[in-house]
């Protein structure tokens, strides 16, 4: 028994990826169990492991945690990535909810019928609704990190969002010089640098195999 957090999810990004990022940023080693078959999923339900019959599931500190945001907040608080007081937490919450909304447009992408996919809208939202906010926050206080002059969950999730959007549109940061510097700087933090290297537990963009597995596992009888 290792005591390391154990993540149960598909072998892909989905709703678990932000959790992998945060654990990695905090320097926490974790194990993974990959969902591959419907039988595995049904067994998890039968064993009462999934509070609302859903993954992500993270077993951590004696708890079987579900609900992505509950898990992220627990990790952030435990590893001092959630600000020093209620007001800093409010700022961090606003910023992570923004990036979560942006990434939330991309996560269902591979499951959306081709003609309904709206990549243009995602890029528009990124460049007119979300990135300008973070560019301005950094510009206004001139500090290295988004909140409280200290590395937090908000910085991790913003970097994650930037990289995901860049995969779809490599020039997306062209009008955001401060974010370009932010990206370079946060990517160089040792734990994050390590996570960005090949061989880490970071997952690649979804492929057909991933999509097929998810559909199969969740298929109704």
């Amino acid at each position, binding site marked *: 028994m290792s005591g390391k957090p154990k993540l149960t999810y598909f072998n892909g990004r989905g709703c678990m990826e932000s959790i992998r990022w945060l654990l990695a940023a905090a320097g926490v080693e974790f194990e993974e169990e990959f969902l591959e078959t419907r039988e595995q999923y049904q067994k998890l339900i039968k064993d009462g492991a999934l*509070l*609302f*019959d859903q993954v992500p599931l993270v077993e951590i*500190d004696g*708890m079987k*945690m*579900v*609900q*992505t*945001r*509950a898990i992220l*907040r*627990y990790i952030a*608080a*435990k590893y001092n990535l959630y600000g020093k007081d*209620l*007001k800093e*937490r*409010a700022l961090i*919450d*606003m910023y992570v*909810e*923004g990036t979560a*909304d942006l990434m939330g447009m991309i996560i269902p992408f591979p499951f959306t019928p081709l003609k309904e996919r709206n990549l243009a809208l995602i890029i528009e939202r990124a460049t007119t*609704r*979300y990135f300008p*906010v973070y560019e301005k926050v950094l510009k206004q206080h001139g500090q290295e990190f988004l909140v409280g002059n200290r590395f937090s969950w908000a910085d991790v999730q913003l970097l994650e969002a930037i990289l995901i959007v860049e995969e779809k549109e490599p020039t997306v940061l062209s009008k955001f010089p401060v974010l370009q510097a932010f990206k370079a700087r946060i990517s160089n933090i040792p734990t994050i640098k390590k996570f960005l290297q090949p061989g880490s537990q970071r997952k690649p963009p979804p492929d057909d195999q991933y999509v097929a597995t998810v559909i199969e596992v969740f298929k109704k009888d």
Partner: protein
Amino acid sequence: MTTKPRLYYFNGRGRMETIRWLLATAGVEFEEAEYLETREQYEKLLQDGALLFQQVPMVEIDEMKLVQTRAILNYIAGKHNLYGKDIKERALIDMYVEGTMDLNEMIMLYPFSSPEEKEKNFALMIQRATNRYFPVYEKVLKDHGQDFLVGNQLSRADVQVLESILMIEEYEPTVLSEFPLLQAFKARISNLPTIKKFLQPGSQRRTEPDDRIVETVNKVLQL
């Protein structure tokens, strides 16, 4: 001198209702700014830079213009001791309220369903309430036998579960028929003084589902 929190939203429940519930439970008096009724009002808020991500809800509180429903709820709960006593209680509370928020999302979007989808969405909403969410809260209460969901004291989890129960009951009055502990929970939590007050006519609670505001929301947000 503390000024009252000021809420910016439509004249309906939507994503602001849970915030109203939590403020009311905490005994915090709040004001509602002019209800969003026209595109011009919304564009003015945008121009004034009042909406961080161009969205409502927005709550002016403690010199912040807070947006993002969860950020607002987390702040209010944290400030008013409705978020558990430690990080593990917070984890339980977070799991439970994220469940209610998933259910509330279905309730909130239901009036916006297209005619073809209405029946299917209704059935799914009731099914999720009775098969996925309410059994969980029933079991939590049964397992520890306490009055409140977490840590033997009132928290946002109790408030949010009560809110969801009442909204589902509006669509399906018998929804709690297989959940005796939730029936007792509903009566008990409804009787807490600040909540009892909020449930009375004349409070700032919105008393009807959002069918009336569908047109307004679509027009203002140009959906």
